[in-house]
């Protein structure tokens, strides 16, 4: 009885008692969801353009953050480190395309997926071999102070993260819709062979897509890094982005954003109101369960391409 009360009644009583606090929890959740979306975006880009489920996105986030923080520690100004890190990510994308993807063209998806797990191990080891495994503080001058908007306390940092994510999505949308390369990317996403036959250079496109995913990873890495510090556990945020991904659909950029918001908000609310009933530490699996619930009704995610199957 106690459990049922704690599970079904007491959380709602708490919400009704302090609606302002609920709004605060909700905004906090939504804003931290934006951070998940940042990582999920990189996954979506690569899956859209090459059908590769890139598990290495989390490692790329860590890799970019390690290089950025490493250059900053060496005394390079932030814009200099940014340019250097972008250079590193471009090189990385080209290397992955040349060494990993090109020999594995036309292999089943699961093989490519495994290869990206191999890349994950490699990048985790490589980044830490160069920069060491100690925690680095990444301070790019973002404020951490809370801000009061209409009686609700909001972290300034989270708002900046949301603005960054928003402008990133807008930039990506423009890039995909309006530029020549963006059109080629969409063509490749639709059909590799048809794209090849009209003269789109697949290799270049893949290198570009991995570069863009690397840059998204860099943004995510800088944001996460200045929130948590640059350390190995940063690679684990990828595991947080996966439920966002299946919730929003592997192929949808807006899906990644909306999915992130739902997961972020759901997670925070469950942690605050339902932790008493089912015990703490649920953030590890709650997002997956939430995504699973959605999947049972929409197997391709909220915004994923409709799956059409023929025999």
């Amino acid at each position, binding site marked *: 009885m106690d459990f049922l009360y704690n599970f079904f009644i007491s959380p709602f009583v708490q919400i009704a008692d302090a609606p302002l606090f609920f709004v605060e929890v909700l905004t906090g959740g939504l804003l931290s969801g934006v951070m998940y979306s940042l990582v999920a975006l990189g996954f979506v880009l690569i899956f859209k353009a090459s059908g590769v489920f890139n598990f290495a996105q989390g490692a790329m986030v860590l890799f970019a953050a390690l290089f950025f923080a490493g250059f900053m520690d060496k005394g390079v100004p932030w814009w200099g480190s940014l340019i250097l890190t972008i250079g590193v990510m471009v090189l990385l994308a080209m290397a992955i395309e040349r060494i990993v993807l090109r020999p594995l063209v036309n292999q089943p998806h699961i093989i490519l997926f495994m290869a990206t797990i191999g890349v994950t191990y*490699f990048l985790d080891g490589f980044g830490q*071999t160069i920069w060491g495994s100690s925690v680095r503080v990444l301070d790019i001058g973002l404020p951490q102070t809370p801000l009061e908007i209409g009686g609700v306390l909001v972290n300034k940092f989270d708002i900046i993260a949301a603005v960054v994510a928003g402008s990133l999505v807008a930039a990506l949308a423009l890039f995909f819709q309006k530029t020549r390369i963006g059109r080629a990317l969409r063509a490749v996403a639709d059909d590799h062979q048809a794209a090849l036959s009209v003269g789109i250079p697949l290799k270049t496109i893949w290198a570009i897509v991995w570069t863009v995913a690397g840059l998204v990873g860099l943004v995510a890495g800088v944001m996460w890094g200045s929130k948590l510090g640059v350390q190995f556990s940063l690679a684990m945020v990828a595991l947080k982005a996966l439920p966002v991904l299946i919730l929003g659909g592997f192929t949808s950029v807006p899906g990644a954003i909306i999915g992130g918001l739902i997961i972020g908000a759901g997670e925070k609310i469950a942690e605050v109101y339902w932790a008493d009933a089912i015990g703490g530490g649920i953030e*590890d699996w709650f997002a997956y369960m939430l995504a699973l619930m959605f999947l*049972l009704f929409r*197997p391709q995610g909220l915004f994923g391409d409709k799956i059409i199957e023929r025999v």
Partner: protein
Amino acid sequence: MLYREAGQFKTSYAADQQIFPILQDRIGIGLIAVLALGVLPLFATEYMTTTILIPFLVMSIAAIGLNILTGYAGQLSLGTGGFMATGAFAAYKLSTMFPDLNIVFVFLGSGVITAFVGVMFGIPSLRIKGFYLAVATLAAQFFLLWLFNKVPWFTNYSSSGVISAPPRAIFGDIMVTGSSAHYTAKYLFLLVFVGLLALAAKNLTRCHLGRAWMAIRDMDIAAEIIGIKPLQTKLSAFAISSFYCGIAGAAWGFIYTGSVEPLAFSIEISFKVLFMVIIGGLGSILGSFFGAAFMVLLPVILTNAPHLLGLNIPVDMISHLEYMIFGALIIFFLIVEPHGLARLWQIGKEKLRLWPFPY
């Protein structure tokens, strides 16, 4: 020349249905059995048995389990670690609740319990497939570990959350689990288990059920149209796969490490088992053994290599380098032979048929 099946005619249906239809294969298997049962226990040191042989056997059970699910039935799963944890904790609860129960039945019982859990987490596979399913199975991984961490009932209210295998014996007085068990006894006990489980798996994949799994894997809609029921087929794959993973987890906790905490079955284990299955060869029982051997030996070699080469590298550097080499080797193997070591073995056999005359 060495490997020639010419002249070996099959005169009965039974001969046609043999698992090893060629005489050379039967001799080879017999040799391996003699080697593993009779020769290795005599020569293997304690270090070799506990760091290589026992983990190899434990991981091959898990690899066979995942291979049934992913290689034969085509359902990608990343929840292996969670299922192994279920097996370990089920075995612990069974053996402490029924102290008189024979350890063999404890293992089988933990497998059955894991099978039920596996079916529960397999239900979404009826709705979703591919990578969506893979991510969904991560829910099993994280949820189960959280459950064993949070609910003290599973660890019999131990304050550290670590379970230790109670000492149990077979045939009256031969200890196989617990700290007083001799490593050779552990090894032989596990070996018999693995042999029987592998045989069962091989036969399962050759029978009606195995063919249904492969049909679902190759194209599920077509399989459904020719009358294979996806519900039974997919869920049976999840059940049997989890049964194997559960036994592997129980063997890990009881025989390999002796005491275990939920964190030991983290997502790393799930990935490792998946690597074994893919590097060994999807849809091959033999490949599961190759994959397990590869993945167990590689870290041992990588850890010992700097000492052997006389290099003096700081410890944390070594672990990072290990990660790098590990990742690079996986990519290398996938590029060289995406169908796994089992395929290399097949190619080798083909070559041996002609050798030493190339025509």
